[in-house]
């Protein structure tokens, strides 16, 4: 009989190998899914995983998709390390988009170089403000931040819908639930000519580096890691639990808000009721698959972006619903959580007791 046996020290090898194992298992699982759906698994693999990156434009789309994911995920990871479970990044993303849109619409037609920075700032503040609600309720009233931040996603979605169906609706928009297109000054500059890859990607890389410095090098990041691994030790050392909740949620909210700003000022060019397209939830997976560390998150966000685009390709060429990408994402996280057991345990064959 197989059984798990505790290792004396966690395996360093496995902590790196486990995500790779999870990816391999996901690919194998994906092939099975394709076969089960009556598609040729090799063809499915090609279309899903290779097609999206076959040319420069494809790669630029991949980076574009990965941008909001890495932004949201690095922000979440900071909180997750301290056991601050902000799962409302989706809502914070939308509020960031709303705040940025507010600035864009207010300065509509203005030709100032300050509009964009103001939008980035507004996005960060909007996201942070939305995240401040669970932070306040948790620190003041002990209300569970998982449930509060999650409820606020639904509220944010309804709020966005009210804006684009009501006060912010484009008067010339044939009644579509969307705002006016932003003016030139309120749109992100492009990074690569002929693609949609915009400056948000550069911002995201910058935030990743800052996130790395914060989590791995700063004393504040150290305190958060202690709080996550051993809350009693944090209390013993005198690290304020309330401050960590605030920091975790505000940074997560701000990063998600900037990501939301990047969407409306980037590929969308306006606010619509479809602005929240699940990036905030997918970022939770990115954060875990990326091992809550900056470099891992970079890789994981690329992988997750590939899954998104692969889903679109599968819809186009294989006639499968694009939500297949969510199936792949879910599988990836499950396999990762499962294979992580081998970091602390090893498999052993057990003989019957003597």
């Amino acid at each position, binding site marked *: 009989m197989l059984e798990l046996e505790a290792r004396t020290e966690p395996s360093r090898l496995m902590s790196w190998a486990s995500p790779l194992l999870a990816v391999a298992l996901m690919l194998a699982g994906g092939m099975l899914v394709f076969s089960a759906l009556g598609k040729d698994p090799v063809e499915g693999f090609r279309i899903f995983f290779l097609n999206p990156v076959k040319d420069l434009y494809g790669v630029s789309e991949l980076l574009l998709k990965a941008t909001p994911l890495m932004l949201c995920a690095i922000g979440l990871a900071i909180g997750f390390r301290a056991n601050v479970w902000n799962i409302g990044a989706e809502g914070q993303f939308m509020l960031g988009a709303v705040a940025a849109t507010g600035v864009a619409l207010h300065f509509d037609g203005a030709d100032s170089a300050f509009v964009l920075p103001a939008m980035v700032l507004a996005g960060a503040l909007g996201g942070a403000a939305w995240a401040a609600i669970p932070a306040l309720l948790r620190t003041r009233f002990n209300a569970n931040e998982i449930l509060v931040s999650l409820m606020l996603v639904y509220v944010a979605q309804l709020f966005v819908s009210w804006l684009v169906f009501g006060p912010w609706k484009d008067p010339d928009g044939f009644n579509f639930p969307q705002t006016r297109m932003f003016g030139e000054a309120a749109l992100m500059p492009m990074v690569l000519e002929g693609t949609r890859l915009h400056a948000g990607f550069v911002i995201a890389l910058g935030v990743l580096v800052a996130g790395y410095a914060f989590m791995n090098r700063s004393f*504040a990041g150290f305190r958060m890691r*202690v709080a996550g691994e*051993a809350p009693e*030790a944090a209390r013993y050392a005198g690290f304020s639990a309330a401050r960590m909740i605030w920091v975790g949620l505000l940074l997560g909210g701000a990063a998600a808000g900037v990501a939301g700003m990047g969407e409306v000022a980037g590929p969308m060019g306006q606010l619509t009721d479809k602005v929240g397209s699940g990036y905030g939830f997918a970022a939770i997976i990115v954060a875990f698959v990326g091992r809550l560390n900056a470099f891992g998150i970079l890789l994981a966000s690329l992988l997750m972006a590939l899954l998104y685009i692969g889903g679109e390709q599968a819809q186009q060429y294989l006639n499968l619903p694009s939500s297949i990408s969510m199936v792949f994402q879910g599988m990836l996280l499950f396999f990762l959580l499962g294979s992580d057991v081998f970091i602390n345990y090893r498999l052993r064959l057990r003989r019957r007791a*003597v």
Partner: protein
Amino acid sequence: MTGRPTHGKTPDGTPRLVLKGIGKVYPGVVANEAVDLEVRPGEIRAVLGENGAGKSTLMKIIYGVTRPSAGQMLWEGKAVHVENPAHARSLGIGMVFQHFSLFETLTVVENVALALPGAPALDELAQRITEVSERYGLPVDPRRHIHALSVGERQRVEIIRCLLQNPRLLIMDEPTSVLTPQAVRKLFETLRQLAAEGCSILYISHKLDEIQELCHTATVLRGGKVTGECIPAQETPQSMARLMIGKDLPHCVHGSARGDGELRLRLAGLSHACEDPFGTDLKDIHLDVRAGEIVGIAGVSGNGQQELLRAISGEETLAVKFPVQICGVEAGRLKPAARRRLGLAFVPEERLGRGAVPGMSLADNALLTAARGQDMLAGGFVRFGRAHAFAQRCIEAFKVKCNGPAAAAKSLSGGNLQKFIVGREILQAPRLLVCAQPTWGVDVGAATFIRQALIDLRDRGCAVLVISEELDELFEVCDRIAVIAKGRLSPTRPAAQTSVEDIGVWMSGMWPAADLEHQPPAGTPTEPANA
């Protein structure tokens, strides 16, 4: 003490339990190796060994909690594989755990029902509990919730739970560590009564005097192996200690305290209502600790020690500042880091998860309390090199056995981790060290080392406060001793002028109201108290 056990009275015939060559291997650890043991009806057999010798593992094997990796077990002459504790109970084996296996939010009768086969009616069971408790002198109310009981009462529940199944073998794992000396007497009477009725008892302990007083025979374990058997009544504590640790019991070198140093800690009428519904409220506590002395606080666990420690360390802040004064500063409202800056260092009771982060390296764990004081930060960023060097210094100065500063805290043995934590605090040159259970669960060598370190620290002019449940330890290191009971603190007494017996009486909450020591009334914090 009267009634030394007589040895002729164990009946002949088959032994109740025989272990042959029992072994248990955990990854990286051999807990038991080739252990032979025999216990006869009516016999009280001690299983003696120091912390980490493998006593508890062996008992868990007998009780079916853990499976052995080798060896054979005979129950009343027949080979058995004990599958699980329910099986053990059906054979007639009962066990009282060191860390009780009780459920806090359930009532006494529910707790007992959980360990009985079938589904006994609770009312009827409550009746039976009362009967048994009267017969063996173990008073307990079957309707009360466990969290409302004292530690001693909880142990009674555990014992009654075993007795209701008429066990023929009762395993007691370190039963006296939670009892006052008077309660220990009472427990021994119960155990003798049981043995007289033919029940076999395996008595796990590392306390030599208790074993001499109670047990007919003893099996000694060291490093998981049997190192000898003896009849305790024919041995001296020294000879048994040699069997137990392979050499003579080490002792600390202890000069006398100066006792006139400056005031480093003053508790001036400290009262605090505990937020935790299972906790203890602190009531009007007065205490002075001066530079160059070690003050000990004795008491049965759960009488307010945790709450007192949190109030001193700052993990729990007070609404007012004067009741806790550290080095002359009224610190009641200060957070832990601010109190540390005043010169406080603190060694908590729990090593893993509070005193140290289990998964982090020793270098990272050095950062936990030493980051600011030892200059390990630069503009909000950590200077990991300095943390590493500090940890290295600590490892060397305190003889911590480990794989260097990068070793994870959880990879260290209890004794070595405790040496590291104590070392981390002492190396910061505190003016006041507060130390909870300094040697709990630590092997004898490390325990002596740590006690000596505390004494040396005192001699360098630090004020030291030790809170411990081990009276022997307090008498070994302390200059003055007080007792905490039900959230109140007794006056202190010079250790040399009191005895284990006196302190034992105090531990039940009875100390002379107006004692030698002058207690300043609450609200007048500045008047000096003289010991």
